[in-house]
């Protein structure tokens, strides 16, 4: 029987993978994928809690909002990455090094 614990373990794994992806990847698009993983781990948590422990629907509503915000965030993020590509012909984060100190 699959219970709350299984969902929480998967979501914790997703969260950790997302953080690892953000910390290690050099390609801006890959980092954005890591951020999506973090947001989706939160979604999984919310839906699982809503079903198994909280006993109300607030969590599922919350997760729908998160999906929408994630789409908006991806749009803004890709626009900024695109602007970066236009300026320096690269999406490698190591090339974003003009600001230091």
């Amino acid at each position: 029987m699959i219970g709350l614990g299984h969902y929480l373990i998967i979501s914790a794994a997703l969260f950790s993978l997302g953080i690892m992806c953000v910390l290690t990847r050099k390609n801006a698009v890959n980092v954005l994928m890591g951020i999506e993983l973090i947001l989706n781990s939160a979604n999984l948590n919310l839906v699982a809690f809503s079903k198994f422990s909280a006993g109300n629907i607030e969590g599922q509503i919350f997760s729908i909002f998160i999906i929408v915000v994630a789409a908006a965030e991806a749009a803004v993020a890709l626009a900024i990455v695109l602007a970066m590509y236009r300026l320096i012909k690269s999406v490698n984060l190591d090339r974003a090094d003009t600001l230091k100190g």
Partner: protein
Amino acid sequence: MNPQILLDLRQFYPELILTAALLCVIIGDLAFPRQRRSVTFFLSALGLALAFSFSLPLFSAPAGTLFFGVVALDPLAVFFKLFLILTSLFVLLAVPGCKEMPQKSLGEFHTLLLGVTLGMLLLASSMDMLMLYLSLEMVSLGSYIMVGYLKNNRQSNEASLKYLLFGAVATGAMLYGMTILYGLTGTTKLAGIREVLAAGITTGDNAVMLFIATILVLAGFGFKTAAVPFHFWCPDVYAGAATPVTAFLSVAPKAAGFAALIRFFFTGLSTSPVNADYWSQFSFINWQYVFIAVSILTMTFGNIAALRQSNMKRLLAYSSIAHAGYIFMGAVVLTSQGLQSILIYLITYLFMNLGAFFIVIEIFNRTDSFDLEDYRGIRRRSPFLSYAMAVFMFSLMGIPPLAGFWGKLYVFAAAVNGDLIWYAAIGALNSVIAVYYYARVIKTMLIDEGEGAARFSIPWTSYVLVWIMLLPTIGLMLFWNQIERITADSVKLFLGN
């Protein structure tokens, strides 16, 4: 439609006006291609001014919540509404006189400014984790674009990319923390969380999870307020963004972040007897000590890193990090006096910090540089700007009788009254360190000799704007009774549901 929603909308005028103004700016930008610059400017200024005047009567409205407990309407929320709208208005007024901004296409900028302001108003009054997350993202997404507004400027683009990546991770972590809180308490309402926690659901494991969730949520607030260790974006973003945007970011989202932080931790994670002016945290989440650690790290790091900066915007960025550390002090002590000191500090910080940035804008317009090296001998070229900058720097140092001193006095007094004398002493030591780099700016501008000799010609609008910042910085103490009374009235949080 539910009649309650219609009634609630009447107390939602500031937000509605800002939304209407935002739409009008978009339409005005398209409908009047010739006069778009002035049309969008006046529409947004009008929108902000109207929103400000419609917020004032809400002060006396009975404290409560709107829209089924999602948005709070209490004096604290109204105070932050007024504060944030005023900040946006000042920044808006500074934009037309700034050479950095693309003056031909500012319509989108005004839209973004109004949108972020709307988000901040909601952030400062959200009583529900869902609302908190949505408004936080609304503020963040708008500010990412504002930072990258100089499309062909590599630094601006890079700054917005860094801001975005840090912001997305910080809010993602915050969201994960919120989901754990929801799982433990079964509600997303802050007041509901407090009630469940007060009833005592916490056994050993749950207490650990609760602590982890609290830290994760703090990451989001720490990002917005630029507190160590979530500050890494701050200097780069402040340096890369156009100066009016930097000025805006250094005051408004920071204040909104503090408002949300106060609401989250005081409403959700601590209890207060009815009509008492102190709170006590739940024994199983010792967030007070986390706050003390964050605050001390923030002010010490900010001040020490500012010592070796040679770029004016980076220097002010680190200085604003340090000020966030002082402001945290007021949140640590868990009393009304502490909250009042936060509000007073924010008022003084608004005028002195915006003033300093406005002068940076003026000097950049003439010299095309943010380097402290190029500030040498400005006294000969423009005595007004130099002496005004000196006043702002003295105020940021906390020299009496300027505004900054009173802010610091209240914050330190709150810490001393909270039996944290050592903590106040660390704060005082920090403001001694800060004297060095602020004094360096004054010395560079007033004493050092520079090369250029031509006097600056400053338009009258800039004079007026700097004076608007200068007068409160100098004369705030003359109105101290009123400020004391307004802030004391404003610290009333609505804690129910």
